[in-house]
């Protein structure tokens, strides 16, 4: 019992309670709602959800990691496209080489952007918008605005072959990335530094954290993750798409936010982001079972994002606190508050 209490306490302190509850709710919906409609939930739907996590999870991890450090890296969307293009072009004989090229390209692009942001104290979103346009332009120029087929079709088939019903090598690789970064964030000084920079940049600089290195490192990591995600995704599809559109970014940002990452920085964990991505993927898979039109899933995702933004809004807490204070001062009457405030003022 005390172990349970200890675990729940740790969850609450780590900020993981909301993502865990959201995940449990989504899992319950995923299982229960289709049965209410008389449809069976099969393993294949769980597999579909895991494949969604495999495709977009690394982007959520990259964006989430950036948000923990107090930056927003829009360029993951461009690196996702460019990584796929590079992998298809260079990985014809050796798929591993393609993934490596994509990862290194992402690493370098991220490092350059992160250095710009920290050296010149630039807004991370403007810099990464420039980065996004450059990478998207490169991807579209390399592919001449056409999807580029990947001749080595077997790679994708092997990558996506179901393992233990719901997993695949694709999703296992992505989960391994989550585990690795999760351990790094939780148990190493690097993780503490990242949270410190996101929480209060000036204070952490004074405390001796090398803010520039942390920012560049976070951008490099999210770039590499996006490159790998793009490479694996293009192997799965057996082709690279020059411009994947806005949907991957929506998924990634929503997953990170319902995963308990604070937009203001300093808070969030890899486990939370993984649960956020899984929750969203289960939701989409559920709409897949129900054979709902695409707009339903889109509307629910959009609504979730707005709700997450509102729930994380700093002024909500203020409003609640001031309501409580009014209630405490004059129980039963919220309206006559103006008078009591004057009384305090005089």
């Amino acid at each position, binding site marked *: 019992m005390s172990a349970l209490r200890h675990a729940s306490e740790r969850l609450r302190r780590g900020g993981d309670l909301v993502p865990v509850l959201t995940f449990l709710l989504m899992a319950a919906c995923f299982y229960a709602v289709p049965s209410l409609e008389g449809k069976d939930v099969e393993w294949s739907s769980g597999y579909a959800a895991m494949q969604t996590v495999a495709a977009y999870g690394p982007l959520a991890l990259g964006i989430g990691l950036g948000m923990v450090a107090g930056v927003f890296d829009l360029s993951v969307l461009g690196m996702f496209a460019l990584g796929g293009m590079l992998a298809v072009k260079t990985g014809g004989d050796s798929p591993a080489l393609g993934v490596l090229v994509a990862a290194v390209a992402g690493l370098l692009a991220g490092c350059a952007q992160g250095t710009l942001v920290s050296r010149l104290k630039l807004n991370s979103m403007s*810099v990464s918008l*420039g980065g996004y*346009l*450059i990478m*998207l332009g490169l991807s*579209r120029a390399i592919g001449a605005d056409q999807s580029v087929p990947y001749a080595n079709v077997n790679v994708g088939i092997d990558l996506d072959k179901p393992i233990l019903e719901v997993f695949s090598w694709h999703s296992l690789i992505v989960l391994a990335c989550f585990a690795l970064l999760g351990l790094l964030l939780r148990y190493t000084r690097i993780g503490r530094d990242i949270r410190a920079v996101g929480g209060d940049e000036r204070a952490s600089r004074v405390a001796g954290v090398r803010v520039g290195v942390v920012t560049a490192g976070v951008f490099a990591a999210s770039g590499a993750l996006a490159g790998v995600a793009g490479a694996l995704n293009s192997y799965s599809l057996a082709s690279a798409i020059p411009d994947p559109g806005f949907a991957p970014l929506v998924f990634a940002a929503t997953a990170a936010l319902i995963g308990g990452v604070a937009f203001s920085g300093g808070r969030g964990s890899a486990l939370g982001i993984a649960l956020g991505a899984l929750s969203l993927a289960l939701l989409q898979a559920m709409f897949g079972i129900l054979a709902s*039109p695409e*707009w339903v899933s889109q509307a629910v995702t*959009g609504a979730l994002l*707005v709700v997450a933004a509102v729930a994380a809004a700093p002024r909500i807490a203020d409003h609640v606190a001031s309501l409580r204070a009014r209630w405490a001062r004059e129980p039963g009457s919220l309206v006559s508050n103006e008078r009591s405030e004057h009384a305090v003022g005089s």
Partner: protein
Amino acid sequence: MSAAAIRRRPDVALAALAAVVLVIGAVGTDGFLTSANFRAILASVGILGIVAVGMTMITISGNLFSLSLGVTVTVASMTFLAWLDLGVVPAIVLSVALGAAVCGLQGLIVAVLGANPIVVTIGFGALQLAAAAKFAGGEAVYPDGGGFGWLASTAGGIPVSVFVLLGLVVALDAWLRLSRAGRELYLAGENRLAARAAALRVSASTVVAFALAGACAGVAGVLLGAANKNAALVGGGDQYTFNAIAVVLVGGVAVTGGHGVTARTVLGALFIAAISDMLLLRGYSSGIQTLVAGVFVLLAIVVMQLRKLSAR
């Protein structure tokens, strides 16, 4: 120009660099210095410029950007064509009002609840796409009536959208400079806490800025629908969103809020359009044009920041 001079006035250096690039490009590119080509550049500035001017309002108000203004453009182009059976003017008014209302609502959530503008606008992007997909049933929308040809016509070889852009810039610039609400918008963007302490209407400023951006997106959507004579959700207008942000940044609007001139945004749009046109005439793909736009975005924000740091 010496290094010290560049450091003192990097914005002048940037403008000089832009001028040099334009002149060299213009002289060295066959077919650039023709009136037909200038008209083509102007035509490509019109609609994007209108969206970018709307985006400028949000940036000045200190709320960074909207990441779904392009979606609002697409949705407005669909509603305009679908509502043409009510008549051209009602279709225009309703589409612009819808854009203003949808974006104003986002501004309300951002202002009153203190929610993050980026997240809220991404979320509303998905919601608008969903609503439009339900409304159109996944099909392209075709005009449900005629009489809107004048919106896509040209006067003296210059498209109507360019005149609309000019009118909007003059009106918004006057509003920003001369009206109390316009001044408040700058102050709220510059220093929100100070503005609040001075009892300025900070929340109202944000709502107005978002609503104006939505109205601009609505106007752009109407012109887009009239020009294309059909509207579909393909792509969801993301390119308008990102290009508008790029134009705002190249135009030198400070991301931190409180500074920026709509006319400079239009100059940014003209510059990007001229460069894209040059690249096109030299046979480069649209991918390369996007890449070059990205390079200029980075250049512009670095230069603006250097100026700010050196001013201290």
